[in-house]
């Protein structure tokens, strides 16, 4: 599960990790939950529109609409056509699905877990919502299982609560940028995750600037570059001090002069491969 502050590059990092894992021979499905699709650009493919899109033999992606997953569950359980239609059309059902807290989160996690269980992929990379909503996603099975004890939803919630609590099954990747607010939020998120029993598996710092040389022309761009690089140095130190184990499982991705697309993902993937290869215990093996 890939999360972090809005705008830090969660989708880019999800695509990079997926590419890197697929290259190591794993079958990977990337799930996007934002209805405004952007993941397809990273792979140079058409938007998913809810369908699984195959990028190559080992890599696929899908834009996931939680309601569709819940509707699917209803179809599967009720089987009889007329009952399905009546249920799906009923106001009660619509309001329940729209408003009942935790249900959509269960649908997303349930879909990921079933994909793994049915051996449709070796790894699911979930391009999750930003920090607060990402935490709610992880917390939902536990909360729901406390309230819903019975029935298939209760059972599903319990099962998913165990799934997200198992550090070998469900791993959290925190994405940030070497800037003040994203670093602050990453540190808070890391702390909150540990408090809830999720040790973050990987810290990805995205958008690193190169150090300016001494002989750069004196203009506004260089001025901005120097100042931002100073901030970067300071914030990386801040991150290292505040993030336990940041040396062991961290990937630093450079800012690249390319828009979101396969060439960018490929270039970052090479950096990611190297970083993962250098880790004593890669977070996925």
């Amino acid at each position, binding site marked *: 599960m890939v999360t972090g*502050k*809005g*705008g*830090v590059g969660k989708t880019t990092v999800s695509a990079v990790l997926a590419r890197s894992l697929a290259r190591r021979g794993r079958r990977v499905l990337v799930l996007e939950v934002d*209805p*405004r699709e952007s993941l397809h*650009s990273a792979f140079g493919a058409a938007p998913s529109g809810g369908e699984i899109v195959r990028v190559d033999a080992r890599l696929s992606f899908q834009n996931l609409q939680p309601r569709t997953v819940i509707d699917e569950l*209803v179809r599967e*359980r*009720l089987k009889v056509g007329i*009952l399905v239609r009546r*249920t799906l059309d009923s*106001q*009660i*059902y*619509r*309001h329940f699905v*729209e*408003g009942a*807290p*935790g249900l959509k989160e269960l649908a997303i996690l349930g879909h990921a877990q079933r994909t793994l269980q049915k051996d449709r992929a070796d790894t699911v990379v979930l391009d999750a*919502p*930003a*920090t607060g*909503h990402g935490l709610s996603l992880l917390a*939902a099975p536990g*909360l*729901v299982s*406390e*309230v*819903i*004890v*019975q*029935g*298939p*939803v*209760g059972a599903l919630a319990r099962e998913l609560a165990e799934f997200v609590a198992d550090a070998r099954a469900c791993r959290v990747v925190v994405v940030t940028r070497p800037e*003040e*607010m*994203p670093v*602050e939020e990453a540190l808070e998120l890391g702390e909150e995750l540990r408090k809830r029993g999720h040790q973050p598996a990987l810290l990805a710092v995205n958008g690193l*600037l*190169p150090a*300016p040389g001494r*002989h*750069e*022309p004196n*203009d*506004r*761009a*260089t*001025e*901005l*570059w120097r*100042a*931002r690089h100073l*901030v970067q140095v300071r914030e990386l130190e801040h991150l290292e001090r505040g993030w336990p184990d940041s040396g062991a499982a961290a990937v630093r991705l450079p800012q*690249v*002069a390319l*828009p979101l697309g396969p060439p960018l993902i490929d270039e970052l993937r090479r950096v990611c491969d190297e970083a993962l290869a250098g880790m004593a215990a890669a977070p996925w093996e």
Partner: protein
Amino acid sequence: MKSPVKSSPRPQALTVVVGAGGVGKTTIAAALGLRAAEAGRDALVMTFDPARRLKDALGVGDSANDREATVPGAGPGVLRASLLDPGRTFDRLVERYAPDAAARDRILGNRFYAHLAGSLAGILEYMAVERLLEVADEGRYDGIVLDTPPTRQALDFLEAPERIVSFLDSGALRVALKPWFRADGRLRATSRLGPLGRGAERFLDDLVGLGLLRDMAEFFQAFAPLYDGFRDRALAVQRLLRAPQTQFVLVAGAAPERVADTLFFARKLAEAGHRLGAVVINQVHPRLERLGSEVSPGRRLFAWLGERDAVGVAQLKGLLAGHARLATVPMLATEPTDLAALRRLAAALPPI
């Protein structure tokens, strides 16, 4: 210092700052408030948990948590900042509309509410506008700027009041759940519900179990006396967001790949009947005057960023011409650390 407390309501401008995550909404909201205070107007900036540095820049620290704290040195108008606490706003709302202490306690102590209502779809977003209505009703300011919370999806915020009303709507859930339980909380004989009701009941029971349904029924029954007040409130919020004195400021990223998002948001605002006052293109990289000789990779990167942003800005200018005012704010090296830095940023913004 003059007091911002006035005896009668006065015309006030409301500004709602929206945009995707990470584009700098909070900083722009603070700068808009400062700009208003500098024009001699009394202004309030309401925001959710901004970074420490912005609190420092405004000089308010933790004193602004769920309170309005005066920003020292901003003037000649009075500028206040307030950090919203959605949980407390919701509790206050329940307290306001509960007919008595027992009803209030029934809701706040309900298992369903306690565990899950905090994450009820859209509650955080809704609480932001609810608080805006509270402050607007008091009429103590010439200008109120609301920074919107990070949403799962950019539009959650606009749809939140509708969604809350829809969820609480007496039609579906309350009526649906009520007949299933007797006053003692035991399940009624379901024969009176007819085949459709039995079907729905069987389905929900099968899906989530009757324990939850009982809690939910209790919650909605406890909520019943509050319902009308709450519903009126949500409708008033909707009206306020479409009132002539309310404008939206859309903060956008400069890269061409963000243009589609910005247009999508602008179109949704228009479709929902909201007034788009201005689009602020934030964090625009400078364009290089010349590349120079012996170009380093870093310089090539900044040349690319400058060109990239120039293309995005030009596209937005072309597409939004005649529809909204446009302002561009340059990429800053750091977030503003003091009022002077915030003031420089504010100078690039349109007055509100």
